[in-house]
């Protein structure tokens, strides 16, 4: 005495088709709810991935050392005078290579000089570093070679130039092999950097890279700006950090005057903040799904009162109460499923549009958000149509038939 599932679906489908305005309204509400969850979480997740990509562009398993250390936060004029940091030197950098967990290091020196070639000249940012910098920062070369892999203290007069500088100084000419003037010194161009996106802090395209010893001569200063340390494994990062602090303390007469940060720690913090943000956004969007659920309840209540006579007829034809409940529920569930599918499509299209508009932002909705949106929409559809379904089932057939 129970209706076949196929017949239930066909009957509910005919009811949905039979009242197009109501159906479209409910589909819209459901679809907007689902699409909102998907797009908002995609934005949150995209922001998280964007930041995390930016950080990994800095290099992987990176420990960054820079001079100066303040033990207390807040400004203390006496302490500031007392802790004028010792310079971070090339010897400090060399000392670090003794640790077996360290894969490679790159000392960094920066400054700004006038670069000129055949009468064209401009101010450029100069980075002094070593051959390892290329690998640590995951940069790519467009032409030629990177800095030669020699001893750190050897001031070879070579340089690698950014693509923008190449264009401005050389225009159509070949850059590699030419001599350019940086300040008072001459350097031979050995390579051109590939034109890639900027990574945090440095625009590679607008930079000239020279050996660190050459930079020390050029800027007339032995002090380093940073030391980049690449650790072999993620697990070793913390021990390398401690090792670095200890060894530099020992080299600097027992005074801790460097700051060591791990890219990992920064990344983890950002990751946590943005993930929390994504969950919060998802929660807010889920409220719109609940609103859609309430709309479903209202519209189903109207539907039941619109179709009182039909429900009375089904009863007269021998449909028990559970059958009526099943019919109304299946109608609401079909709406939910359809609405969820439309919402999923809209949401994914929206994410696609966001990715087109902001190519840097990897706005992909995480799977858990898609699954949750679908599940919540089905659940709200079910829960909020229980009341109308029960109301329909309890209709008195005689008054229902007469449309009262």
């Amino acid at each position, binding site marked *: *005495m*129970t*209706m*076949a599932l*196929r*017949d239930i679906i066909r*009957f509910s489908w*005919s*009811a949905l*088709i*039979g009242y197009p305005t109501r159906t479209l309204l409910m589909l819209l509400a459901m679809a907007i709810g689902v699409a909102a969850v998907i797009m908002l979480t995609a934005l949150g997740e995209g922001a998280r991935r964007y930041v995390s990509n930016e950080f990994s562009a800095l290099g992987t398993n990176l420990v960054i050392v820079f001079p100066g250390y303040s033990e207390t936060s807040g400004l203390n004029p006496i302490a500031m005078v007392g802790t004028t940091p010792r310079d971070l030197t090339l010897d400090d950098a060399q000392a670090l290579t003794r640790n077996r967990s360290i894969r490679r290091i790159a000392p960094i020196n920066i400054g700004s000089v006038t670069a000129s070639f055949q009468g064209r000249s401009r101010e450029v940012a100069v980075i002094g570093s070593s051959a390892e910098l290329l690998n640590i920062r995951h940069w790519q070369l467009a032409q030629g070679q990177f800095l030669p892999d020699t001893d750190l203290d050897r001031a070879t007069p070579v340089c690698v130039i950014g693509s923008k500088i190449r264009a401005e100084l050389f225009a159509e000419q070949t850059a590699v092999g030419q001599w350019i003037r940086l300040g008072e010194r001459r350097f031979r161009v050995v390579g051109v950097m590939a034109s890639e996106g900027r990574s945090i802090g440095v625009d590679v395209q607008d930079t000239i890279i020279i050996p660190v010893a050459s930079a020390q001569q050029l800027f007339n200063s032995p002090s380093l700006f940073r030391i980049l340390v690449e650790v072999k494994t993620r697990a070793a990062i913390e021990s390398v950090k401690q090792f670095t602090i200890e060894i530099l303390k020992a080299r600097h007469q027992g005074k801790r005057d460097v700051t060591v940060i791990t890219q990992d720690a920064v990344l983890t913090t950002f990751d946590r903040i943005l993930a929390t943000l994504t969950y919060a956004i998802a929660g807010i969007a889920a409220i719109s799904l609940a609103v859609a659920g309430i709309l479903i309840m209202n519209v189903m209540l109207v539907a039941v009162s619109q179709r009182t*006579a*039909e429900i*009375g*007829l*089904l*009863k*007269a*034809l*021998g*449909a*028990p*109460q*559970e*059958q009526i409940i099943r019919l109304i529920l299946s109608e609401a569930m079909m709406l939910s499923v359809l609405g969820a599918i439309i919402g999923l499509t809209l949401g994914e299209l929206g994410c696609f549009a966001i990715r087109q508009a902001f190519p840097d932002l990897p706005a992909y909705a995480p799977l858990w958000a898609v699954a949750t949106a679908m599940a919540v929409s089905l659940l709200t559809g079910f829960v909020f149509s229980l009341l109308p379904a029960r109301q329909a089932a309890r209709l008195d*057939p*005689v008054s229902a*038939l007469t449309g009262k």
Partner: protein
Amino acid sequence: MIELSKIHRDFLVGEQRVHALDNINLSIAAGEYISIMGPSGSGKSTLLNLIGLLDRATSGTYLLNQKDVTVLPDAQQAVTRSKTIGFVFQDFHLIPRLTAAENIALPLVLAGTAPLLREPLVSKAVREMGLSDRAHHTPDQLSGGQRQRVAIARATIMQPKILLADEPTGNLDQKSGQDVIAILEQLNRQGITVIIVTHDAHIGKRARRQLRMVDGRIESDQRRHKTGSGE
């Protein structure tokens, strides 16, 4: 087949208690052809709904096929309606979005009959009602008479023992009304118990047994022993 004894049905209208049925005692045998007549509000439809298990008595006993159905749980009531009772209404009650054939098939669908088994039953019913060229039209594309024939086909598709018709000709013109009555009488000749509620004295007189109701009571119960009245 139908045994009603001391049936009362009260409604509350505001503060007022209205006796729609007042001590009804009625016995109907299988295969009878009965008309129920009387003024509006005399309880004709209430009696029909009660026999059809759409309504419940306030007090009294209703035996259907020797079984007490006075207070049956909803599910069993539904099964009984589905298997033994067919309804024909004044305003047809066809579902507007379904075709004639789909409307006719509805009781089978609700009872869970497989499509393969439904198909021959429905096409037979469509043929018998002379609706072959109308089977795939929706109700709004059918005339009143055709609609009522669809409704009768639907009411009889489960081969019920009892057919209850509440003013079946009320919304039809003379000619269509006569057709519908002819069909109902034909069904009665096949052994179905037919009970018609009507205002139309002409139609009411055709039944072999004629009940007349006033104020919730059966005022007269006449039998006409001539069979096969003038057709």
